[in-house]
Structures are given as C-alpha cells and as structure tokens.
C-alpha cells in the first residue's frame, strides 16, 4: 500500500537539496536552449512540469554508448578485462508518468532470459520521481495504451499538482521510501480536502489490446508501404524513444588494446539487418516500418507480456517528416475494422 503526503513547492526545493547532499545525481526535464532535455536539476524552478523532453531518460539506464568489455593484445594472447558499469545513484525527478512506465519495457528485454548486469546495475541505482501531466499534446496517446497521464506504474514516488499549489506525493516503492527518508520533514500528512489539478485530457485514439489482435491479420496489408512512403529511414524515432532497446555491438581498438561497446541502434535503418553477403531480410522501408510497429504492439505483448510503447509521442515529435505514430496506429485500427 502506498503512502500519500503533501509537499509544498518550497519543500520540494529542500527535498532536492537533500537528494544532492546524499550524493545522488538529480536529473529531470529541464529547458535548455529552447528544448526540454533530461538535464541536471538544481532547484525546483529547473523542472519543466509539462511537455515532453526531446530525448527520453532511458540513457540513464541504457546509455547511448557504453563499454561492455576491454581487452589488451599481448603477443598472441588476449587479456580480457571485465567491465563494471559505473552507475552513479541517480534520481529522475519530475519525469512524465509515461516515461516512468518505459523502464519496465526495457527491463523485460534486458532480463527476460539472461540478465544484463549493465542495465540492472544502472536501474538499481535509479529512483524515479514521476510527475502527473496536466497538459498533453496531439502526439500523446498514453490513454490508447491503457494508461493515464497520472499513472503510478514505474514511479517510485508520483507527484501530482494540487490546485492550491504544491503536490500530493504518492510513495509507491521502497526506493521511494528511502528517498523520502532523506527529508522526512518536508512531507506533510495529506489533508482530506486536498484538490488535485485535473490530469491532462488525452482522448483515446485506438485500443492497444484490440490492435494486437488486429495486427495478426495485417502483416501483408498495403498500409505499411502507404504509411512509410515518406519515412526517410533514419533513427530519430528509435533514439528518442524511451522503450526502444535495440542495440549494436561494436569493437574499437588500436594495436595495443581495444574495447567492445554497445550503442543504440534502430530497426528503421537499412543496415540494421543487412547481411555481410548483401542479402537483407528487411530490404524495404515498408518492411522496416512494419517491424517497428509489430515489435512494439504485437511481438512485445506476445513474447514479453507488455507493450513496447508508452504513448509518449516523442517519436512523432522528433520525426523530420512527421510520421505521427498515434495517427498511424489509429489508421491501422480503422483499416482493420473495415476488414
């Protein structure tokens, strides 16, 4: 059972200070040169309370480039050196609830079978303080996926703004409790008449459960080619996405030593599946676009029991040619309903 408190905006400042003082790095949505980035939060004023960051916060647990292995060339021999991820205790503060939920979608991939210590170590060191959205935009579609702008899933603490100022703080996990314990007196008991600012209205555009069923019969639909005609095959959508987990592994070395790196990759790019022979199982952009949709909305739920999408809409906003995922999925659902 979660614990609920109220916290004033001023107290949030003290709470942030307590986190920093405990050696934690505090990151959150912050306005930097006109863009919302996941950046260092020093004061409460730094936190942008609505609107999506361009790039998601996934880099905290799944960096865009990370080292998996080091080695040295010693004559004919190789000296392998295991690598431990350097994970600084981190609080993601004021994160959108959709992004908070995204960590689960990463977790199921990194741990469904073998366990990825790089992700796990970073995740164990990360505490998520979510912040309910009171505004949304045309690209948002969390409600189509069975979620809400004030969803608690994935947050260790969820803040929801009060009409009278300040927030309700719902402490959901042990990690959340540990964070609250840093500045226990900044939290007050929840008053009975505390009125919340209503969460953002996000009209559902389709139903993800139904969509999963519908996709089963739509693999050969001409819709994929139709929708992807304007797709440029870049990786902007995947790289800003909080759940996109596909990665590349690359060696970099000189004559003395080398390292094996993991880097973000994208299924939208042609070389993603290209064989050395020149053969490519997903040679056309339409096949790659279809893969992206199926991976998130059919294969994920079927294999891993969760959607590979949280409806944040970052992909749509980042796309240079305005591939709007919500619109496209609504179109798929509509095409399915028309048989």
């Amino acid at each position, binding site marked *: 059972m979660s614990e609920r408190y109220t916290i004033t905006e001023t107290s949030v400042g003290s709470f942030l200070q307590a986190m920093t003082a405990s050696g934690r790095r505090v990151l959150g949505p912050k306005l930097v040169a006109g863009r919302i980035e996941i950046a260092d939060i020093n004061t409460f004023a730094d936190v942008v309370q609505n609107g999506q960051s361009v790039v998601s916060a996934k880099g905290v647990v799944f960096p865009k480039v990370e080292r998996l292995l080091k080695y040295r060339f010693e004559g004919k021999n190789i000296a392998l050196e295991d690598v431990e991820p350097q994970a600084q205790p981190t609080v993601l503060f004021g994160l959108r609830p959709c992004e908070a939920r995204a960590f689960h979608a990463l977790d199921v991939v990194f741990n469904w079978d073998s366990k990825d210590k790089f992700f796990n170590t970073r995740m164990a060191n990360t505490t998520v303080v979510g912040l309910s959205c009171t505004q949304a935009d045309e690209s948002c579609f969390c409600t189509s996926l069975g979620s809400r702008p004030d969803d608690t899933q994935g947050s260790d603490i969820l803040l929801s703004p009060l009409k009278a100022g300040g927030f309700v703080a719902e402490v959901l996990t042990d990690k959340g409790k540990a964070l609250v314990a840093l500045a226990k007196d900044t939290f007050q008991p929840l008053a009975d008449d505390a009125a919340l600012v209503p969460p953002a209205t996000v009209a559902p555009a389709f139903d993800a459960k139904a969509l999963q069923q519908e996709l089963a019969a739509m693999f050969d639909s001409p819709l994929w080619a139709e929708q992807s005609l304007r797709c440029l095959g870049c990786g902007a959508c995947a790289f800003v996405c909080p759940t996109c987990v596909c*990665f590349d592994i690359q060696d970099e*070395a000189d004559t003395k030593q080398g390292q094996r790196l*993991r880097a973000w990759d994208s299924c939208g790019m042609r070389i993603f599946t290209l064989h050395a022979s020149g053969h490519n199982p997903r040679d056309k952009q339409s096949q790659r676009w279809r893969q992206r949709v*199926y991976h998130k909305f059919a*294969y994920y739920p079927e294999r891993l029991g969760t959607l590979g999408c949280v409806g944040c809409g970052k992909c749509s906003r980042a796309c240079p040619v305005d591939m709007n995922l919500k619109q496209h999925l609504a179109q798929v659902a509509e095409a399915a309903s028309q048989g």
Partner: protein
Amino acid sequence: MEANIYKPYLMRIAAITDEAPSVRTFRLEFADAREGEAFTFTTGQFGLYSAFGEGESTFCIASSPTRKGYIECTFRETGRVTSSLADKDVGDIIGFRGPYGNVFPLEKWKGKNLVFVAGGIALPPLRSVIWNCLDLRDWFKDITVVYGARGVNDLVYKNELEDWGKRSDMKLVVTVDPGGEKPGWTGKVGFVPHIVEQIAPPATNSIAIVCGPPIMIKLTLPVLAKLGFGKNEIYTTLENRMKCGLGKCGRCNTGKSYVCKDGPVYTLAQLEHLPAEY
C-alpha cells in the same frame, strides 16, 4: 560480481583447414581448459565468434557434441569480422560466446531414416548433426546425405566427404552444378533438387534436414513434398544478422520468432507460420 553475458570465452586456434576458396575451418580449443571441461552444447546450436578489434560474427558450431575438447567452425570470408578471422594463424586467440539457440531434436528422430540435403557453405550446420548421428548410429535407420556445390572447388570438408563415401552405414551423394565438374570428377552433375528427386529417398518414417542457399531450399521443398515428406518432418536452419545472440539486440527476428532464441532450427511447418524475413 554479476556475470557479464557479453564476455566471450578465449579460444586458441588449434588447426586451420582450407576448405574452398575463402572458406576455412578452425578447430578451437579453450584457452582455459577448465572452461572447456565445463562447456557443453547440443547439435544445431551456434555461437558468436570474435576477432578482437573487429567485432563478433555468428556461425554454427560445425563439430559434433560427441567430439569433446574442442569446437569447430567453418566460415566464408565475407565481412569485417570474417576477413579478420581469415588472417589468423594457428595459436592465435579468438573469442567465442555460446552456445546459443535451439537444437536438432535427435531423440525425436530415433528409429527413423534421415535425409540430409545441403548446398554450398551450408554443409557446416549439417556436418555437426551428421557426425552426431553417425556417432549414435544405432539410433537411426538409413542415413542419406545429398550435398551439392557450384563446382568441385566449392565443396567443403573434402576429406570427410571421401570418408563418408566409403562408409557402408550411410549413403552419400555429392553433386556439382552443370559446368562445375572437373576432369576426373566421379560424383554427380546436376542441381541439388533434381538429384534429390532422382535418388528419391523413401519418405515413410523419414526426416529431411535441408540447409542451403535460399534458392536451393525453395526448389528442394516441393521435391520433398512430392516425395511425401510432411511439413513436420522437414527441418532447416535460418541465419539472420545478430549482435547479441541473447534475444535482446532486436535484429534477427523473423516475425515474432527470434532466430537466436527460437531458432536457428525450424521445421517447415513452423516456418510457414512466419513471415519470410530471412
């Protein structure tokens, strides 16, 4: 300390065999003998082989699990990693992660006739299972191997083909494409599907294992169907680009099936439920 699932075994190249132009076989021994003792795999499985400094590449384990103490792999020099591997000498160290993937269900095949059909560089995955079956010879009834390549030079495992040809407990048919024969060639001349049709292995109580270039597979399957092989009796292996081999990196899937976890061994019946993303 949690285990690093991306950390490879270090393997010493114990022997190198030139099989065909740009195709070679490495015999690999564990640099750390204790790791070698603890290592087991089952036929059909594959691994990721590293050329340190260049990266990893995926190929099957081409030796049989019944032969202990080493693994073998056969590869064609094609890309960045395989080119680097091709430059290695005996005694050099490479990396190996595995074994990964599913297996050929030999237990299920007990008491049956086995028909192996392979083309070109696709004999290695079948070589593992052929040797495995030969080492467990009394499990199975007739064993037939049909192997074809473009030309005589392109045949791999030439010495073993000779040995197999001499064995009385199996039937080996080797063929080369028309024009690929050389003076003194005593094998067949003709495309693999035609040869399979010609020798017409009995389909009753039989399993067919087919591995080869897509066009060969495409043309062989109807022949096998005509001979009476059912969709659950025909096996093949898929090979897609992989980075992790662990069901995480997201590129080897064909439809919902991850070749690295659910494959590489599939029956025709299974493949028919998957899109042709291979």
